[in-house]
């Protein structure tokens, strides 16, 4: 899609945001929907982006910032090239998901919620991904992988970062970005 010349920023990603704004007729109560779209388009919620949304909806900046920071789903920092999300729901926890997180923390030197310095990998933990039958569950780049072992996850990620395609157990693709 060619950039829209008449948009102040000339950035085509704003079109997606504008479409959602229009769909909800610029109603203020659609704020969360608009933020969802914005995050989908940009990957994270930049300060300028929040200001743009606030102005379009006629809401105070503080209000939009307050909502964006309240919900775990919204990220105000750029995310890494690849993402790894470890489920820390109860079922995964009793099946030792914490060991996977510890392993990843030690190996990559980042805490959950952080991104490696080279911007390659973001590590996150989820509350529950609702795949408790497969506990412990890890989601790497949107692919749900069940019954994981700590070493396996590290191995997978190392290979992924080296540029090899994922050799997952299945082909589940979900837009889990939390």
């Amino acid at each position: 899609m060619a950039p829209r010349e008449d948009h102040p920023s000339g950035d085509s990603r704003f079109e997606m945001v504008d479409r959602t704004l229009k769909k909800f007729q610029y109603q203020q109560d659609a704020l969360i929907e608009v933020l969802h779209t914005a995050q989908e388009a940009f990957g994270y919620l930049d300060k300028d982006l929040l200001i743009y949304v606030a102005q379009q909806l006629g809401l105070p900046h503080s209000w939009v910032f307050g909502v964006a920071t309240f919900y775990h789903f919204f990220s105000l920092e750029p995310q890494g090239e690849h993402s790894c999300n470890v489920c820390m729901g109860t079922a995964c926890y009793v099946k030792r998901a914490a060991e996977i997180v510890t392993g990843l923390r030690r190996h990559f030197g980042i805490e959950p919620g952080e991104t490696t310095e080279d911007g390659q990998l973001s590590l996150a933990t989820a509350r529950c991904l609702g795949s408790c039958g497969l506990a412990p569950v890890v989601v790497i780049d949107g692919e749900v992988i069940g019954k994981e072992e700590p070493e396996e996850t590290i191995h997978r990620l190392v290979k992924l970062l080296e540029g090899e395609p994922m050799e997952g157990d299945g082909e589940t693709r979900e837009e889990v970005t939390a």
Partner: protein
Amino acid sequence: MSLDNLQGVIDREKTRQDGFPCRVFCCASTPCLSSGATAVIEACKTAAGDKKTAKVDVVSTGCMGPCSRGPLICVQDSDGAETTYERVTPEQVPEILEGHLNGKPPLDHQIPESWPFFAKQKKVVLSNSGRIDPEKLEGYLVAGGYRALAHALSEMTPEEVCEEITASGLRGRGGAGYPAGLKWSLVQKAPGDRKYVVANGDEGDPGAYMDRTLMESDPHRVLEGMAIAAYAVGAEQGYVYVRGEYPIAARRLERAIKAAERRGLLGSRVLESGFSFRVDVRIGAGAFVCGEETALMASIMGRRGQPVPRPPYPAQSGFWGCPTLLNNVETFGNIAPIIENGAEWYASIGTETSKGTKLFALAGKVANTGLIEVPMGISLREVVFDIGGGIPNGATFKAAQTGGPSGGCIPAEHLDTSMDYDSLKTLGSIMGSGGLIVMDNHSCMVDVAKFFMEFCADESCGKCVPCRAGTVQMHRILDRMTCGSATRKDLDMLEQLCRMVGETSLCGLGQTAPNPVLSTLRYFRDEYESHISERDCPARVCEMSEEPVFTQLAESVAS
């Protein structure tokens, strides 16, 4: 479109289905997909051959239940007999399908019908789950869908619908167990021109995925329940609030709404009656507190999901001050069967005070994990040892955790407890939304309590002080216990904080946050004691690497 015109659609679909000597249902829910179901479905389609000449109807369905045994497929012969296969590989598919077409089904990977996992269940809410394609309205219609709505609209007054629900004894499935009929009547009688119906699908409890499965496997069931509720209370607008982590559920609901509107089953003038009902899907953004009704409504209105004091209850003043009926997704899943089969039939299932069936997400240290639907009043032992198949790896049962971070643990001595709202409450746990996590002797109860407290501290919205500060303090104490640096004073302080936070918090999150601690203290006090006095974790989970500050001080003074 009236129901007669719909009948044409139903008949066409029925003839199409009957034209196949064999139908195969392939589970396409997340657990099965991640075990390789996509390849299995493809293999089924290839084996079925060209669309025009195919002898096999391949249906991608929602969840079948035993998630740990996926990929699952179920073959239905022309006489209606069903055979389920577990851990299917794409290579096996041609053999299975040919076997069925030739009347000689293979025995490999077959799940016997008498398997307790299936035999002990009773499917009311999930009756279509795993048997219809959730993305096709026709399948739901053939299975008897929207008949209950048509019946309610043509034969019953709104008051009669409320009375029917009251008579059925249905209680809210979100956790608290408030009688659904009573809530409906309150909203119905509340004055106001505009009313709203909201389905709570913000399933925040870690370890619970009943709502997700229902929304993904049978979205029309939820919508039909909502439409009946809207007719009963006089609402014209509804919302389904879906958790942000469930994009598939949201997408399927949106498609289902569009399909139903095209056929005149939702939207304006439903089934050519004077009743109109629009439904919108709202997607959450990851906040556990939004499961609380006032916080949920704030979130749908685009605000921070912070609860407000009740009363006024949403039934009197909810959305924009209008009366609002708020029920769990699973509650709405029960409505159509009640209207269709009558309150008496529904009330015959379950116990005296808890009627009907309940979905549980069975997970943790149990052989068969998955989603189950059992009649209320079944014993915990039957759920864990018959349906769940017992504890694997030679370990022993220690406790079952119900109700997530608001619930508690049920220890081995209470295995024969009946699973209903009141019995669980007496034991210091709650029914909750239906997460059931089994723990074996390798789980440390102090660590589990710490896990839930960390969850509550993190998810506290920060509005009221007892919850915001109290949960953090309790988590610190529990953390000290699991590190080995706690003292006896800490235990007293913990109990005191439990009381304070429970009694003074604003909303359910804070009021129930101490429950996991209180219930583990009640049944496993000895574990707390040994963490403190002996600095020893009996289950060998906690590292116990630190020492109490007093000991450190005493040592430094001595040296």
